[in-house]
């Protein structure tokens, strides 16, 4: 192992860039989890579905990868709404573990349907952006990853603005804080759940389109991203928007810097270790307030 300052700088840049994507993936999960107190264990598989859509549009239909956002986002919104109506709505008030098992079942179904339709092949699309990069001093920056980071930041800002400033956003936050009180002041809580689930899923559409130029697609691609998203949401504090963004960057950095010092995929052990430590000592998250 040759250690150098350049290597570390490179890892920090890469960690921050991938951390932005992690943050974007987690924001949707955090919203769903915060609003209806359901952990969607199929979150990673929703991302996988979006990545297949983006992949086929770019690789087979020749679209510009970033244009696919106009398909992936509405598609994921609809998938989210459809799955919510069909499976989540009937169990909204069931014990939490039943909800978890149901979404675990959903993730198994989606993973293996993807395996059935698309086979286990790892698909990579070579777009115009894939090979572009530039130098920042000694550090190589992949243009597609920088675009993804900026795109993730813009999406997060838009979502934040939506939640803070619009009537619907306020209704979503009200429902998240106290569903019965929200209902009393005239919020249709079930509709809010539906919309929150749709929006939470739609953010994955953005993430998928941004990732296609530099990331592969496979039936199990959602597994690790899903796990990382739970880690980030817990780290950032349940339903805490800003917390999830910061935690996303922290996890991206931990993973990339860890990979400099440790061989193979050992850095993942650190990510999970960090998560376990946080869960044990600050289950409300690093940035969370009082425990619920």
């Amino acid at each position, binding site marked *: 192992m040759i250690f150098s300052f350049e290597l570390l700088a490179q890892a920090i840049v890469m960690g921050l860039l991938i951390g932005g994507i992690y943050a974007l993936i987690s924001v949707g999960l955090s919203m769903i989890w915060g609003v209806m107190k359901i*952990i969607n264990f199929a979150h990673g598989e929703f991302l996988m579905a979006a990545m297949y859509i983006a992949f086929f549009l770019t690789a087979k239909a020749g679209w510009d990868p970033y244009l696919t956002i106009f398909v992936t986002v509405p598609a994921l919104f609809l998938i989210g709404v459809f799955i919510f109506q069909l*499976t989540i709505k*009937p*169990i909204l008030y*069931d014990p*939490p*573990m*039943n*909800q*978890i*098992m*149901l979404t*675990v*079942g*959903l*993730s*198994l*179904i*989606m*993973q*293996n*349907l993807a*395996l*059935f339709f698309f086979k*286990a092949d790892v698909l990579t699309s070579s777009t115009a952006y894939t090979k572009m990069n530039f130098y920042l001093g000694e550090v190589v920056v992949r243009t597609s990853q920088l675009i993804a980071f900026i795109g993730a930041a813009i999406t997060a800002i838009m979502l934040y603005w939506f939640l803070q400033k619009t009537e619907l956003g306020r209704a979503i936050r009200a429902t998240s804080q106290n569903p019965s009180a929200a209902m009393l002041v005239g919020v249709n809580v079930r509709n809010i759940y539906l919309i929150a689930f749709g929006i939470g899923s739609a953010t994955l559409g953005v993430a998928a389109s941004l990732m296609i130029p530099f990331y592969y697609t496979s*039936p199990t691609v959602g*597994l690790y991203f899903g*796990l990382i998203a*739970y*880690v980030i949401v*817990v780290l950032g504090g349940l339903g805490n928007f800003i917390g999830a963004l910061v935690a996303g960057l922290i996890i991206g950095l931990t993973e990339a810097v860890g990979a400099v010092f440790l*061989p*193979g*995929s*050992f850095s*993942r*052990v650190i990510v*999970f*270790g960090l*998560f*376990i430590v946080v*869960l*044990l*000592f600050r*289950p409300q998250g690093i940035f969370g307030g009082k425990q619920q």
Partner: protein
Amino acid sequence: MNKLIHNKMAILSIGLLLICSFLPFFLPDYFLHIAILVLLYAYLATAWNILGGFAGQHSLGHSLFLGIGAYTSTYLFTGLGITPWVGMWIGAGLAGLAGWFVGYLSFRYGLKGPYFALVTIAIAEAMVSLTNNISLVGGAQGLDVRWEGNNPLVMQFENKIGYYFIILVMIAIAIALVYWISHHRFGYQLIAVRENEEAAEALGTDMLRVKIVATVISAILTALGGTFFAQYITYINPRNVFGEGPSIQILLFAIVGGLGTVWGPAIGALILVPISEFSRSWLSGTFAGAHLLLYGSVLVLVMLFMPKGFVGLFEKIKQKKFRKQSTPSEKEI
């Protein structure tokens, strides 16, 4: 009255055990294989059920203990030549320690429900990454269990009947243990943890201890199953013992059969394992994920339509019959 039920239960169980003992001599090899898998998964689900069903603490990372059992005995056997008959107990001891660690850390800080599930997943996933990177235990390639020919001393049999009887004894002991637990103080304490922890704590039960003991027992039993799994399949790797696949399979049968019941996990495995194995062998050439697709669909359907599993369904039917005979006024209740 109670004694009568116990006696009836004992007679039924012994009868069932006798039937199961004669069964392998009449089964063709392929069906014997399925019978072994049914018993193995019934056993693992029964072990999970102690913590997940009775105490209501759903571990989504029980593969941690399965993997510890499988890796310990296999490494000791293949690397150091120690027979799995000894290795399985060392694995069980290590898994018990791991269970204590997981239980102590999580429950001490009052983690429950989804958070406990997440901790268990994270630890199991960390073990996948860890074993993937340790070349001593084969890294991502995993370990082959060295074949020494027909040698019962190292838990290897040319004929599947040998494996069948080992797992039959294991599940018989596990079910007897769960039955015993469910009719004794400890079992009531477990159910108290699940139903109303604060109330039980207020009555003076040490809930932390109860939950940790449940985790340790469940971990030990699961690890013993892990050794059997390794000996029978003869090959282990990080994903197929520590991964999320085995974790889900372990709990699936308990949930489908009936959480927190003595026979639920076995019934769940008896119904689901043959279906999944047949579908696997029919579709294996064209569709490798058939059985997982089936498991996912079953999980979703069970959660939507019969969250209490098959045992819950039987009881509902029984109650309906009973209600038909009762007076209308009782119906109101």
